[in-house]
């Protein structure tokens, strides 16, 4: 092989390497193939679910203004009584462009809960302001309000 061909060969392999590296990095950071059910179960296992109940799709629409059928899976644990603030919401996005809308809906839910408890439930308000997390990662959105919020988020990320 002459020098010219060798140089072109090296350049060819560098180009190929760059492409392969990009694909590998994309796979690591891309959309998760985990199911919404599995991710929700993993997150739920990390929190104290007393005082909560699983919501029907209609309740998700009522509380968040989201149509669950527009997502690739969507689960909600919400307070059993009006005096509760613990909550866990996990949604798998059908399309990454839906993320913004879902995050906005979740943010509005959190603001609404804060307004409800501001001045009436000090403990609940503290939970909502200090122990709530909203995370959007790898095609999933999670919203949690509980004392174990950090552990829930760790479990969520591990399940992706």
């Amino acid at each position: 092989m002459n020098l010219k061909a060798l140089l072109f060969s090296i350049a060819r392999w560098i180009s190929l390497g760059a492409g392969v590296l990009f694909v590998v990095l994309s796979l690591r950071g891309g959309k998760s193939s985990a199911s919404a059910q599995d991710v929700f179960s993993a997150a739920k296992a990390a929190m104290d679910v007393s005082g909560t109940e699983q919501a029907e799709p209609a309740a998700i629409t009522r509380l968040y203004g989201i149509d669950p059928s527009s997502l690739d899976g969507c689960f909600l644990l919400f307070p059993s009584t009006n005096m509760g603030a613990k909550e866990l919401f996990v949604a798998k996005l059908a399309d990454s462009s839906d993320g913004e809308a879902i995050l906005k809906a979740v943010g509005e839910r959190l603001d609404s809960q804060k307004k409800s408890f501001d001045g009436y439930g000090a403990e609940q308000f503290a939970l909502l302001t200090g122990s709530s997390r909203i995370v959007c990662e790898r095609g999933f959105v999670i919203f949690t309000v509980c004392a174990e919020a950090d552990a829930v988020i760790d479990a969520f990320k591990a399940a992706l």
Partner: protein
Amino acid sequence: MQLDQLLFVFAFLPLCIAVCAAMPQKLKKASLALFSLLFAAWGRPADLIIILSASFFVFFTGLEIGALRENGCRRLAGLVFAGGFAGVLGLIVLYKYLPLTVGSLSSLTPPVGLSFITFSLLSYLFDVFSGRSGPAKDPVGFFLFVGFFPKLISGPIIAWHDFEHQLEGCRISADSLERGLRRFAVGLAKKLLIANAIAASYNALAASSGARTVAGSWLALLFVSFMLYYDFSGYSDMAIGLGAVFGFELPENFLHPYACDSMTGFWRSWHATLGRWFRDYVYIPLGGSRGTKLETLVNMLCVWFLTGFWHGGTLTFFVWGMWHFALLALEKFIFRNVREKFPHPVRVAIVFLLAIIGWVPFFSDSLTKTVGWLGRLFGGAPLWDASVGYYLLTGGAALVLAVLGSGNLPGKLYKKALDRSPDFLRAVSAVFILLLFAVCVALMTGETYTSFLYAGF
């Protein structure tokens, strides 16, 4: 970014034309290449990494093959060619087919135009290895061949040996601007005024009870047949028009396929550049029709297997490919002489019917839905439903326009009128096209966006 979006029509395109026109000749190609990069990166800049690395991989592969051939190392050149070929094929398999079966790859989203970029890269490797063309020495010109924005998303597919000699002719003139923008406006009208209108009627019909009747199934079939034709041919017109603006002649992709009187003619007229690519790079290298009948059949089967597979890795596309293989084989070997006994209009009607039946698996999500739709077409359902009449009335106008416009009659009439009074007709057609464009702009502003159908392949 798509060619029928306001952002493209009123921001990207005028800026591109202005910059390229203002640049000195030696920088025009580079400007066009930069704009093509911007187009490819719009919305997903990371895609550029794959497009550029694939382009550079093939660019240097071509140079290496050329250098080895110069030194008489044909065997090594063959190995390098095989490696390059495998690399490009590997790219499309990884992004388009493996995610269908490997769950962990489902997060991989193919870069825009990957399927069509693959054709460009493979044809380049074939041309350089076979000696039909020399390797590209200029990476800018090569990237323009791979990523030229008018043809990036859905073609037309052009081979390197047809594109390379046009690179030095890259320029914008008043004539190229007029011709190109006229063609672009016609394509835009086809997409927005006809294809989208039919799509709306089809979607509504498909969701209604009318779709489960015999009449509704035939109406739905007519809708999808013309929706696809006007969507794809409209896109091709836009791409060819834009190419012409910059001095590039892109090949015709649709030549009145529904007016053809043979399946062979249909496939020389429907997505003509795809058929030509498979003929030049698969059928002929395999032996074409030079061998025995059996060998010819096997070669045709390969082509149609790959054609179906390229459209999608599902059974429905396989069935679609095999349907057309069967029709072409029957036409070539059994019905060649029988055809001539029928008058031309009857042959056209038969070919049209056979071609549109092929769209049933093409547009079905599963074999079950394919069988269901075919069953309803041939009597396995109630004959009629009130909603069918409604969709026939509301979508009928667009369908009639679509049918009339899909033949070669409008073109013939235009040419006849042009011979009689060229100046008057040119003025009238210019005003007409401007009006069409104004309506398209109104639609682009007001309508929910419907993406190009073939952008999904």
